[in-house]
């Protein structure tokens, strides 16, 4: 080897290796060439994608499934702007991803050079933090800080913009281990007075409810939450993103709450006298009409991010700390409550308002997802896209294992599910990984079929094909007098043939009688990716439903006979 100093790009890759990076998801271009070149000599595996958005969702799926930051590498200008949706998706759901962008040479910054875009400028609102590196000597420090910031506290995406002269030039700066970030504090244990206050409140509650969110997933609080629920004899509900933190099949678990949550979970929210959020942020899809949300219930909120306190609802007690540590600290102070009447009430609701779907009248998505759950029993990673199929999957595929449920909640990004499943499969090679997509969303990132195929990834891709942008169609049916506008997916490809065109094994489910047989075929198939296309009834609706902006008590259990007003909530 020559005695030449490493280039900035080589130093960068060494830094990534020191961070334990196994995979980089990316797509190259002029400004990123030095970095791609440096990857040739690295053990880090480059997963080449077909569109940069796919790379961001793969990194995101990898991160959600493993808890480790996912890394993306793209070129300048359009390569970088294609990551914006993925950054938003990761920011909204607190996912640690690192996006490395090539950039034009630094003397050309601000001069409309070829493929120059003000990437740090464009992305400020969608990152936890970002860097524009103008001096190669900063590469080790910036990389260390980026990983630290992305993965600690409330995790989130960090972007590093790397001008080509910086990556091509020499960099002898030493590696950095310790970060010095005076403006960045990572909370851990909460104030003991707050813990004691929470114990006191929980003690006097007659109808307590534990409301579990993504913070519990991130901190791994599930086991402690189950113990807390058992000691308190309190029911649990979780958000879409909280699925899997605490085993949804536990007898005290009432499933998902919110817009399309179970009726029994939502009824428990309406009637509880104490609701304790553990890493959930009282999103508008959870609270419905704020003025009527849990007005008389005591509200406790545990969060690592104090900017969430009192943001949506006025709290009685805010506990600033890591969800798992807070619940663990709380456990020794908990005395069993007298909640038997409350639990009996919840069980009665569970019996009276079960999730159900018609068993006749053609193939239904609910049936397919119900059977997928029967086959995988919460042991498979399930990554969903966004729409009706997502809500049905959330309702029927109960999660038993932390980090087995991946779904774009805050951003609701169509196109997320399939690439997220690919990323998850890279991160969890020994787990069974399914994506559940709609026919609309799947087409937004379907180009990644090639990525799955070339790596012979055993990811299983279920497409719920209703030939509609189903969720929007549902709203038009219920709230816009059936006036369909821009929801018919006429022109869909034959998804089985599409998969076959990539050399991918594919099956079609046409009738209810096919469901188990074909799901089992896919379950057993491990030679590479496979696609299952379920041709479901075109017009079906997700219930229960709390129309956006309505009070939870106005939840619809089934389609109302009367005409509905347009929802007042945002979306």
């Amino acid at each position: 080897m020559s005695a030449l100093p490493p280039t900035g790009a080589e130093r960068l890759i060494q830094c990534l290796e020191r961070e334990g990076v196994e995979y980089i998801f990316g797509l190259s271009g002029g400004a990123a060439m030095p970095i791609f070149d440096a990857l040739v000599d690295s053990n880090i595996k480059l997963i080449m994608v077909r569109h940069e958005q796919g790379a961001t969702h793969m990194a995101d799926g990898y991160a959600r499934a493993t808890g480790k930051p996912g890394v993306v590498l793209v070129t300048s200008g359009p390569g970088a702007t294609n990551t914006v949706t993925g950054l938003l998706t990761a920011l909204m759901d607190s996912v640690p991803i690192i996006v490395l962008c090539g950039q034009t040479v630094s003397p050309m910054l601000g001069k409309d050079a070829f493929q120059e875009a003000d990437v740090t400028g464009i992305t400020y609102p969608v990152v936890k933090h970002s860097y524009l590196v103008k001096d190669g000597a900063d590469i080790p420090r910036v990389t260390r800080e980026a990983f630290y910031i992305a993965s600690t506290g409330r995790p989130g995406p960090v972007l590093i913009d790397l001008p080509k002269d910086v990556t091509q030039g020499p960099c002898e700066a030493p590696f950095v281990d310790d970060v010095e970030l005076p403006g960045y504090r990572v909370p851990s244990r909460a104030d003991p007075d707050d813990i004691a206050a929470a114990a006191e409140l929980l003690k006097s509650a007659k109808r307590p409810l534990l409301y579990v969110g993504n913070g519990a997933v991130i901190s791994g609080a599930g086991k402690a939450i189950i113990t807390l629920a058992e000691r308190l004899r309190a029911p649990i509900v979780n958000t879409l993103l909280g699925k899997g933190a605490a085993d949804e099949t536990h007898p005290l678990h009432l499933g998902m709450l919110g817009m399309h949550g179970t009726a029994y979970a939502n009824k428990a929210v309406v009637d509880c006298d104490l609701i304790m959020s553990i890493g959930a942020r009282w999103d508008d899809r959870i609270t419905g009409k704020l003025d009527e949300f849990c007005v008389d219930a005591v509200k406790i909120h545990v969060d690592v991010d104090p900017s969430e306190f009192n943001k949506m609802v006025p709290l009685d007690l805010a506990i600033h700390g890591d969800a798992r540590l807070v619940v663990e600290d709380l456990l020794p102070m908990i005395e069993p409550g007298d909640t038997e009447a409350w639990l009996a009430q919840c069980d009665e609701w569970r019996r009276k308002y079960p999730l159900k779907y018609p068993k006749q009248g053609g193939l239904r998505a609910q049936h397919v997802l119900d059977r997928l759950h029967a086959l995988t029993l919460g042991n498979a990673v399930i990554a969903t896209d966004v729409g009706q199929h997502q809500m049905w999957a959330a309702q029927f595929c109960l999660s038993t294992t932390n980090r087995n449920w991946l779904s774009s909640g805050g951003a609701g990004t169509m196109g997320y599910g399939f690439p997220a499943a690919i990323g998850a499969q890279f991160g969890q090679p020994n787990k069974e990984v399914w994506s559940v997509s709609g026919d609309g969303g799947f087409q937004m990132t379907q180009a990644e079929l090639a990525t799955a195929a070339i790596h012979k990834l055993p990811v299983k891709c279920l497409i719920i094909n209703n030939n509609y942008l189903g969720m929007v169609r549902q709203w038009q049916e219920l709230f816009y007098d059936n006036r369909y506008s821009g929801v018919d997916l006429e022109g869909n490809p034959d998804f089985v043939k599409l998969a076959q065109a990539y050399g991918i094994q594919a099956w079609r489910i046409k009738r209810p009688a096919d469901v188990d047989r074909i799901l089992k075929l896919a379950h057993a198939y491990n030679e590479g990716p496979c696609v299952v296309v379920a041709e479901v009834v075109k017009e079906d609706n997700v219930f229960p439903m709390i129309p956006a902006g309505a009070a939870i008590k106005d939840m619809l259990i089934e389609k109302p006979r009367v005409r509905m007003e347009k929802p007042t909530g945002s979306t």
Partner: protein
Amino acid sequence: MAAPALRPMPASEKTGIHTISLFVHDRPGVLVRVALVFARRGYNIESLVVSPSAAGGFSRMTMTCSGDPATLDQIIRQLAKLVDVVSAIDHTGDQSYETEIALIKLDVQDDDRTQVLQVAEHFNAKVVDYAQTSIVLRVYGGSEKLDALINLLRAYGISELVRSGKILMARGGSET
């Protein structure tokens, strides 16, 4: 069920114009990140002063803005959350020392000059430029005092006005 007495949530009770002091890591982009916390809500920053702090590598930002207390409370928490922001404190209504400088250019005719100079003297404003048809006054003090002077002088024809924006410092051992 009534909640037992707990220490109150730190929701701000203060209304009207708020003065916020930020101590920030002096990194490119920090001003944009701060501004975006306001801009995404359509909030206007009314004045903003950025200057080096006593500690090298850090800057002080003093900003004023108006809005409802609950939203501003949230804004301050979101500012504090920014990686480059070391501290964010709302000084509204506390006993901090506050001051501001204004430069005021007036197109004054001979007959108005004496009166303008009398007003200026009353407010301790200094004439820093004296020309044929204009004078420039420099005045400092509390923002309300500056407002009062400017209002009085409008009658004589203010042609240009530059205000520094409010700066403040907490008294005694308190942190700004």
